């Protein structure tokens, strides 16, 4: 494997085998050094400073004493010589004292090389990144979103067991999947490029708005992302193995759309990546690898559809403004995509940064580099473009994260390239990370605003029973929180305007709970219903409308 990696890795300052082979061996280097003094003193004893080996006494260099110098008396005029000839003897020069300190052997490269120390540094940095991600998710809190509540009362093959965990449990599980996805993303990027790019990619991904949101959202989106990340990692991991090894990734890729339908958009990307990641090692075999992956994934998806039907909701059209959706997507993922494009351009121009020119090794050709850069960057646009085309902005703030998962390796490479060889400009990396962090935090804070339903639930608790019919704007939330007291069928979704008026006139609902800033016309001065309470959200600046609850008089 190591030899293969040396040949086949796209690593920038290659793996350690790369330089070890190209660099003059250590012994050679030592021989080139000038030899002076006692060779023994250079070894283990150099740390003893001026202490002479074996003497046990400190050695202090001395001026030659008078006994060692023989001078003639100075000229007094009594000599017969015409000129003064001094008498002297040439003294043998003292052997040079040992140097006090000798620079230790300098490795040809620092931590970016895959030795065990650098691997542990990477793991430590990744752990910090994951801790930050967990913190960013945990700062989001509140009652269930309507979609979460709907998920938590569902009983699908995948969703049922998760729903059993309740809101807190399902959210914690989501975070676990999200952290796992980040770790796998690091692994995949490290295999495709190098550990530095891997860490930068994980750091960029961990602070994204969609990452923090998904990690605190009781749904299967997070699982779906984890499955995609696992498939990506397996593609990278098996890039040098036989084409059949790619089949390992197929089940993960095939399962992802059944967790969240939006993952289906990324199966073509994975197929392309199956080819592109393998091409260097297997030649035409790479296409076999891609075909195998596509066929296996397709077959598994087909079986899944036969067993569980098509996931619903994937093609619901709506009338949201396409421009607005693209604008929002740009706000949520623009920074990462921009850095990814920079990374891709840099990658296309130059396969490696050239930190260790002697360890260049072989690198993919320009065409393959271009295709990889293009595939990864373009994938980030899939969900925004698709949903803009549908005009359906539903959960787009989550779906952008799916595409960014594939663009982020390039973004990691971009950060690594912008920081330059040997971390020449670390401030650029820090700047990008801080910008992404702040933007992500602000956006998540704005988006993660679940309805403040606690007071509403508390008020309804007094009036609901097992028989009543209830009209509400959030039937999912009530059905979830009152799953012990009521049946989901007792909760009906309130209409708007004329539909609401008709529903109110029917007079068949025992309680009407609406989220409305003002009293709807139908309920103003209504002789059948009495306003029980107006419950304002505890966060007054949150922009949420108060709950208004009417009961039968």
């Amino acid at each position, binding site marked *: *494997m*190591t030899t293969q990696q040396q040949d086949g890795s796209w690593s920038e300052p290659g793996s350690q085998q790369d330089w070890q082979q190209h660099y003059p061996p250590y012994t050679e280097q030592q021989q080139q050094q000038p030899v002076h003094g006692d060779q023994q003193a250079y070894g283990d004893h150099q740390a003893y400073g001026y202490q002479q080996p074996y003497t046990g006494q400190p050695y202090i260099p001395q001026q030659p004493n008078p006994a060692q110098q023989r001078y003639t008396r100075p000229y007094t005029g009594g000599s017969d010589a015409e000129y003064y000839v001094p008498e002297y003897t040439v003294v043998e020069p003292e052997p040079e004292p040992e140097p006090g300190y000798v620079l230790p052997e300098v490795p040809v490269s620092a931590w970016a090389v*895959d030795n*065990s120390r650098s*691997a542990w540094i990477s*793991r430590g940095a*990744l*752990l910090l990144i*994951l*801790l930050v991600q*967990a913190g960013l998710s*945990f700062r989001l*809190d*509140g*009652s*269930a979103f309507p979609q979460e509540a709907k998920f938590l009362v569902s009983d699908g093959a995948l969703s049922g067991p998760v729903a059993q965990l*309740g*809101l*807190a*449990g399902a*959210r*914690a599980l989501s*975070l*676990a999947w999200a*952290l*796992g996805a980040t*770790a*796998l993303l*690091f*692994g995949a990027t490290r295999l495709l490029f190098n550990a530095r790019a891997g860490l930068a990619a994980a750091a960029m991904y961990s602070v994204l708005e969609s990452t923090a949101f998904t990690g605190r959202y009781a749904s299967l989106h997070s699982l779906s992302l984890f499955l995609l990340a696992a498939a990506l*990692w397996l593609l990278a*991991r098996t890039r040098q193995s036989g084409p059949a090894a790619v089949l390992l990734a197929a089940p993960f890729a095939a399962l992802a759309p059944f967790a969240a339908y939006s993952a289906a958009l990324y199966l073509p990307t994975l197929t392309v990546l199956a080819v592109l990641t393998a091409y260097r090692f297997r030649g035409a075999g790479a296409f076999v690898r891609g075909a195998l992956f596509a066929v296996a994934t397709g077959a598994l998806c087909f079986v899944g559809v036969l067993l569980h039907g098509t996931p619903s909701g994937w093609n619901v059209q709506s009338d949201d403004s396409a421009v607005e959706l693209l604008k929002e997507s740009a706000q949520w993922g623009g920074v990462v995509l921009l850095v990814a494009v920079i990374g891709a351009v840099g990658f296309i121009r130059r396969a490696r940064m050239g930190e260790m020119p002697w360890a260049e090794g072989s690198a993919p050709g320009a065409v393959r580099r271009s295709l990889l850069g293009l595939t990864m960057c373009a994938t980030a646009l899939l969900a925004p473009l698709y949903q803009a085309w549908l005009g359906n902005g539903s959960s787009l703030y989550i779906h952008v994260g799916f595409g960014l998962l594939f663009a982020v390796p390039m973004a990691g490479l971009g950060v690594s390239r912008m920081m330059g060889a040997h971390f020449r400009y670390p401030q650029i990396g820090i700047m990008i990370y801080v910008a992404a962090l702040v933007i992500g935090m602000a956006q998540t804070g704005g988006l993660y605003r679940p309805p403040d*339903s*606690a*007071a*509403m*639930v*508390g*008020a309804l*608790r*007094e009036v609901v029973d097992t028989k009543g019919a209830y009209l509400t704007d959030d039937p999912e*939330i009530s059905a979830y*929180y009152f799953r*012990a*007291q009521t049946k989901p069928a007792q909760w009906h979704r309130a209409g708007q305007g004329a539909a609401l008026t008709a529903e109110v006139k029917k007079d068949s609902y025992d309680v009407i709970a609406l989220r409305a800033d*003002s*009293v709807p016309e139908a309920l*103003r*001065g*209504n*002789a059948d219903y*009495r*306003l*029980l*309470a*107006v*419950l*304002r959200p505890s966060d007054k600046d949150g922009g949420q409308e*108060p709950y*208004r609850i009417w009961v039968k008089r």
Partner: protein
Amino acid sequence: MIRKSVLPLCAALMSLAAVAGCGVLGGDDPAAQAAKEPSAGSASKGPGAELPYDVKPLLHPGKEYFGVALDGAPSSLKPVDAFAKTVGKKPNLVGSYSSWGNGFNAVGAQNVFGDGGMLYVSWEPFKPGLDKIADGSQDAYIKKYADSVRKTDVPVAISFGHEMNGHWYPWGTKDTTPETFVKAWRHIHDVFQQVGATNVIWVWSPNVVNPVRSVKLEPYWPGDAYVDWVGIVGYWTRTGAHTFDTLYGPTRSQIDAFTDKPVLISETSSEPGERRRADVRALFAGVKEDKDVIGFLWFNIPKRADWRIQSSPLALAEFKRLIADDDFGFEVPRS
């Protein structure tokens, strides 16, 4: 090689463990707590305790309200305590008057509620006229008032523009039409609903029709959706009617034609004189016997006549004897 391949797995496992630890801490969902909370009334804090006061149980109480209007109350409860000592029973409805433009007496409302009773406010729109109220130009004031009521979160009975069928107040028949009155009433009610001041009992309070027979009440009626109680203002005077039926009957028969809301004798007293003791007896008997009448509010302030019950020892003795009946007075429910 193995080390490299297990790295992502290792990280995932570590994060899982970390999350499992944190998940326990972050596991409190306020809404789930609210759904499980034992029914309100227990002293538990938590989201359930933040629910606004529900006046429903106060609308048709099992016993009769015993109310009183006193000088100085409810800003201070001393007059109420003194009155309670005089008659031997603590009133559970304390009347007060609030001119349009004045703020809501939140402290008074809390004082009274803290003492087991409920504040009754006669809201008197002397200025700027009901048409101004109806057209929305007074909304800022109404909203402020309503918000103050809502924040007080104790039950309050509000009687807007009482004795609207008389000609003696600026909002009466002389200067205002019934349509404007109804429009203003509904508008105020709507603003209160908008603000969410649901802790109000709305009392529509005409004067007894006896002195103003020509004025029909129905045009002044805002509708069942806008009114909780019918209040009747009717004093026992030396020259007027002297039975419960003749004093309140004609008014009630008109009202019965358009609503069956509970009736409160919202302002009454008896003029000092020979008949006072009999008047007191008739009032108590009438209130107690009539199932639709939910109580009375005694005007115990000297104004034009000395309406204070303690000014007539014999009548006071009768008052004391009758009010001792367990049917009169009760503690207003705490939540």
